[in-house]
């Protein structure tokens, strides 16, 4: 047992030596990463190879660890949102909204319907952006660059919508406690409608390009499979779990931000292999588009933020011309806000699983402890189990379809 504490190359050296004496065959050690383009992020896998077949492997993570949990203990709530951006940077708005909802739960703030619907729209946009990246890059890793270039322009369109909402594109830092910092402009809705019109046929083309493509199917079916029992034990959530056949989705199990108002299906797979993960994500994009359409159709009028002057920054114009607003602005920025002593756990359905925030407060303006449940970190430990006995090129496809985001993995 204590053998596992040794660096893997030492353990593997023994195995290699033993095999050489046994039948003369030569095993080798391969470093996949830390900065290999096919790993899409900075993490290392030390693999023990028999020719092209993987016998064993060990992952090393932490190359971009930035101590977010420690930093969060020293920052007021509104300064923690930029940290959440940098976890799953492919779907930053989901992280932002998840964090705001956690704080709102702790403070007991009720968010108006319009803000909740706007949040749903932006979270589903983020999910689409996330799945665009994952699925198109899976195509690239199996040798199909066309689909990637074809759909990536629509991630750009989604980023333009973010830009219109909050001014930022990748690390969005979107929203405020209780809603949004400003109502969405007509241009934002215009861009959104344009996306809803143009994107579906493109996504249909992309699906047609890969889903029944013989080469793609050969490269992904039965590659990196995981059974449902094992997936649950390994803490899988999100599309990766649903690909194994479990319809666990927090949007349905514990609806937040008015998800209960919308009709949508949870696509599930069967075998939990790379192909199923691809298909589940494809199907989820259609569901997300449908949710956005429903939300736009039902979007209520009304305020875009909760009426909580203790926490919500007053409009800048008033801060310059109104004593009261200036005082509130100052108090909020300096952290003179009432915070109860409590603890909350809030989970949202992130791009790749249950993104949870466990917040403990002690009455001061900063969290006493904040723990992020990062889905990547939890399910990535199954990777070595999933690729054992498979070919090296299958490991690349598996890694790609798991959608491991280094920022979220390492926090």
């Amino acid at each position: 047992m204590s053998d596992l504490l040794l660096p893997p190359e030492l353990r593997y050296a023994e195995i290699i030596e033993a095999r050489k004496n046994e039948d003369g065959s030569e095993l080798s050690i391969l470093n996949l990463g830390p900065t290999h383009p096919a790993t899409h992020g900075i993490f290392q896998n030390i693999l023990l190879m028999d020719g092209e077949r993987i016998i064993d492997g060990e992952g090393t993570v932490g190359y971009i660890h930035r101590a977010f949990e420690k930093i969060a203990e020293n920052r007021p709530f509104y300064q923690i949102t930029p940290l959440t951006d940098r976890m799953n940077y492919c779907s930053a708005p989901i992280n932002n909204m998840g964090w705001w909802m956690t704080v709102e739960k702790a403070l007991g703030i009720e968010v108006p319907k319009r803000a909740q619907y706007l949040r749903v729209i932006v979270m589903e946009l983020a999910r689409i952006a996330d799945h665009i990246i994952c699925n198109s890059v899976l195509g690239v890793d199996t040798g199909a660059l066309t689909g990637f270039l074809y759909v990536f322009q629509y991630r750009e369109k989604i980023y333009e919508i973010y830009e219109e909402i909050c001014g930022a594109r990748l690390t969005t830092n979107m929203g405020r406690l209780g809603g949004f910092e400003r109502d969405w402009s007509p241009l934002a809705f215009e861009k959104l409608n344009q996306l809803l019109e143009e994107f579906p046929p493109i996504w249909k083309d992309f699906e047609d390009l890969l889903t029944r493509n013989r080469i793609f199917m050969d490269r992904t079916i039965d590659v990196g499979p995981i059974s449902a029992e094992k997936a649950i034990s390994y803490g899988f959530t999100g599309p990766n779990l649903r690909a194994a056949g479990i319809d666990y989705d927090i949007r349905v199990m514990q609806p937040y931000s008015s998800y209960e108002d919308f009709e949508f299906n949870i696509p599930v797979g069967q075998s939990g292999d790379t192909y199923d993960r691809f298909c589940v994500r494809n199907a989820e994009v259609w569901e997300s588009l449908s949710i956005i359409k429903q939300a736009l159709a039902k979007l209520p009028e009304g305020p875009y933020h909760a009426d909580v002057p203790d926490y919500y920054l007053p409009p800048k114009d008033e801060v310059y011309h109104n004593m009261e607003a200036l005082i509130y602005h100052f108090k909020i920025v300096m952290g003179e806000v009432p915070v109860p002593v409590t603890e909350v756990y809030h989970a949202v359905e992130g791009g790749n699983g249950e993104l949870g925030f466990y917040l403990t407060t002690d009455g001061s303006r900063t969290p006493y402890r904040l723990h992020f449940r990062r889905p990547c970190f939890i399910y990535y430990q199954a990777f070595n189990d999933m690729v054992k006995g498979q070919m090296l090129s299958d490991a690349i496809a598996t890694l790609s379809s798991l959608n491991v985001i280094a920022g979220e993995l390492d926090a």
Partner: protein
Amino acid sequence: MALENSVIQHTLTDQFGAAVGDFQQIHDILTFEVDSESISEVMLFLRDNATLRFNFLTTLCGMHFPDADKDRQFAVVYHMHNWVDNVRIRIKCYLGVNPEIATVSNLFLSANWQERETYDFFGIVFKGHPQLKRILNMDEMVSFPLRKEFPLEDGGRTDKDDRYFGRTTDNC
């Protein structure tokens, strides 16, 4: 909600007596304490009992309370989820100055890396863990950075004085 909190509480107290206690509802989650000696058995019971069915370990993390009593300096907090009845619970295990607790990685594979992370940041030793070594920090590190005494920044910095910005060690 099919599974009532009182049912969870009674089933657990019947089985484990004084090893479980301090049941309280905090926001939407039933929270209780478990004696650190019996965490393995309690988790196994929660998972395999036909009424409780807490099949999923959502997350586990460490906590540090330097101002608390000697035997309550650290805590390991587990969140479990019953997917059939859709109920979450939070389990807390308080530990003393030299924190040691049994691993649950034999019950839930997902606990493996999370326990390594907790060890890495708090120095909480998980007995029976197959590979208890640092995971996010480098192996050569000697301190445990999420303990409260570990400073966020180099204390010797002179270019930045937070007192002028209304921040003192008490409120930040």
